[in-house]
C-alpha cells in the first residue's frame, strides 16, 4: 500500500496529512507530544517581513461545531523564523512548508526571497490579506490582482509554491486558474470563512477585532464544495483545508479532488489527531484494497 503523494518535482509527501498554518505555531509544542516525522508535511504559522503583534483580545470564540479566530497573524517575522525556528524543524523527516503573507506585492516578494533557503521544501502564500496599495481589497478577491501577485512571487523563489485561496470570493475557479497561470505548483483550498460573534447581553462584538474567521467541522461541507469546484478547472494538485477532523473527511476530500489535506482546528482540540487520521486513512485503503492513495483523487462516483 502506498500513501505517498507527489505535489511537485521537488515535493513528495509520504502521506497526504499535513498540519495547517496558524494552528501549529512553529512545531515546537506539538513535538512534545508526537514525532513530527509522522506527518506528510509540516505547515508553519504565517510569516510577514517584520514581526507582527496581532489583534487585541479576545481573539477566539467557540461556535457550534467550530470556532472563530481573530489572532491577527501574530508572528515573529521571517528573519527570526529562519534563524530561531527553522533549524529545529530540520531534525524531523518531514518536508517543511512555510506559510507567509504581505500587505503589498513587494512584501510578499521580499518574504519569499528570504525563505529561499535550505531546510524549506515549499512556500504557501496566504492571499486573504488586504492590499494596502489598492484600498485594502484582498489580493485573493480579484483574478488579475492575484495573477500579478503570484507571478511576482513565482519569480522570487525556486521553492514549490502553494497558493492558499480565500473561500469568500465570487467564483473560486477564477482564482484557482489565475494562480495556476501564474505558476503556482498547488492550490490550498481554502482558508477560514469570514465570521463574527455578538454578545447580546453587552450588545458588543465578542472579538477584539470585531470579525474573524470560522473554522472547524462546521465549514467542512463548504470546503468540500470549493475543492470540488477547483478540481474541475485546474490540473495542479489541490491541498484541502477546512474542517478535517477524521480519516473519513480525508477520504471525502480526496474523492472531491484533493491530493492532500491540512488539519487545523481539530489539532487544537486533539493534538494527537494527526496519528489517528493517518492510521485511519491507511486502514481505509487496506479495507478497500486500494494500492495507492492517489487512486482516490477526484474519483467521486457520480
Amino acid at each position, binding site marked *: 500500500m502506498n500513501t505517498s503523494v507527489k505535489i511537485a518535482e521537488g515535493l513528495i509527501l509520504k502521506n497526504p496529512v499535513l498540519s495547517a498554518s*496558524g*494552528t*501549529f*505555531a512553529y512545531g515546537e*509544542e*506539538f513535538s*512534545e*507530544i508526537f514525532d513530527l516525522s509522522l506527518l506528510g508535511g509540516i505547515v508553519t504559522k504565517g510569516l510577514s517581513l517584520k514581526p507582527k*503583534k*496581532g489583534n487585541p*483580545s*479576545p*481573539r*477566539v*470564540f*467557540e*461556535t*457550534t*461545531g*467550530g*470556532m472563530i*479566530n481573530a*489572532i491577527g497573524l*501574530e508572528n515573529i517575522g521571517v528573519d527570526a523564523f529562519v534563524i530561531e525556528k527553522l533549524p529545529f524543524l530540520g531534525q524531523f523527516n518531514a518536508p517543511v512548508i512555510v506559510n507567509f503573507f504581505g500587505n503589498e506585492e513587494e512584501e510578499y516578494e521580499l518574504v519569499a526571497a528570504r525563505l529561499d533557503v535550505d531546510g524549506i521544501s515549499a512556500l504557501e502564500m496566504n492571499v486573504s490579506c488586504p492590499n494596502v496599495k489598492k484600498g485594502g481589497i484582498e489580493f485573493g478577491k480579484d483574478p488579475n490582482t492575484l495573477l500579478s501577485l503570484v507571478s511576482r512571487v513565482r519569480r522570487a523563489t525556486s521553492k514549490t509554491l502553494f497558493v492558499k485561496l480565500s473561500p469568500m470570493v465570487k467564483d473560486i475557479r477564477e482564482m484557482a486558474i489565475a494562480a495556476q497561470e501564474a505558476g503556482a505548483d498547488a492550490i490550498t483550498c481554502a482558508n477560514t470563512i469570514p465570521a463574527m460573534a455578538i454578545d447580546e447581553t453587552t450588545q458588543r462584538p465578542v472579538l477584539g477585532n470585531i470579525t474573524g474567521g470560522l473554522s*472547524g*467541522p462546521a465549514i467542512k461541507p463548504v470546503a468540500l464544495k470549493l475543492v470540488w469546484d477547483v478540481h474541475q478547472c485546474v490540473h495542479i494538485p489541490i491541498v484541502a483545508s477546512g474542517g478535517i*477532523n477524521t480519516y473519513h473527511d480525508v477520504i471525502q476530500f480526496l474523492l472531491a479532488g484533493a491530493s492532500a489535506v491540512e488539519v487545523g*482546528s481539530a*489539532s*487544537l*482540540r*486533539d*493534538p*494527537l489527531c494527526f496519528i489517528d487520521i493517518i492510521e485511519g486513512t491507511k486502514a481505509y485503503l487496506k479495507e478497500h484494497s486500494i494500492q495507492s492513495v492517489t487512486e482516490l483523487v477526484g474519483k467521486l462516483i457520480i
Partner: protein
Amino acid sequence: MKDVRGTVCNNTKVADDTFLLSLDCDLPDSRPGQFVMVKVACGYEPFLRRPFAILSNHKQTLEILYKVKGRGTQLLAEKRPGDILSILGPLGNGFSVPEEKRQVVYVAGGTGLPPVLSLAEDLKQGVLIFGAQSKDQIPLMSRISSLPGVELKVATEDGSYGFMGLATDLLDELTGNARGPVSIYACGPKGMLLATSECARRTGSRCELSLEEFMSCGFGVCSGCVVETIHGNKRVCRDGPVFDAQDILF
C-alpha cells in the same frame, strides 16, 4: 504534556454550582498552578476542550474543582463514576518557590481557589485569604479550614461568613501589619488581581498571579489567549498561567 484517559471516581457538588471531580488517571507529575485541558464531549459539541487548574495530582488521582458556568462545565457536571474523559496535561508553568523567611500569603477569589489551594496544600505554610460572594459559595470548607500549617481567613461580600468585604481588604490589613514584604500568590477575578498587584507594589512584596482566560488549544500553538505584558504579548496557556504581577499590563 500527555493525552491520558481519566476514569471518573467522584463528581460531587461541594458548594453552589461547584463540583469536585476526582479521576483515576496516569497524568505525569505536576506543579501547583499547572492545569489540564479536559474533553467534556466525544462529539463536536462543544468543539474545544476546557481548561481547569489541577487541585491535586497524587498517586494516580487527579482532582479538579470547577464551577458550572456554561455548556462545557454543565456537561462535565453530568459525568458519573466510571465515565472516561480525555485529559491533556500537565500544561503551563506553575507557581515558583517562595523566597525563604518571607511570610506566604495566598489570595483566592471565587473560581480562583483551585491553583492557590493546590499551592497551600503543597507548601504547608502561610495565610490563605479566600473571598466569595456568600457562605454558600465557599467550597471544601472543612478541607480549607484544616490545612496543615495554613491559617484561613474568609471574606464574603454579603457578610454571611467571616469578614464582610473583599479578600483584598484582608490582604491590605495583613500586609499592613506584616513586619516586611511578603510572598503573594493569587488567582481570581481581574479586579481582585489588580488590587492584589497594587498591594504588592506598595509593600515591596513579590507577587505571582495565575490568570484565567478562555483557551482554544491550551498548549501554546494558537495564540488565542495572549495577555499584554511589559515583555510584549504572552500566551496565558504556555508562558503562564502564572505571571509576575509587575509584568502584567492590566
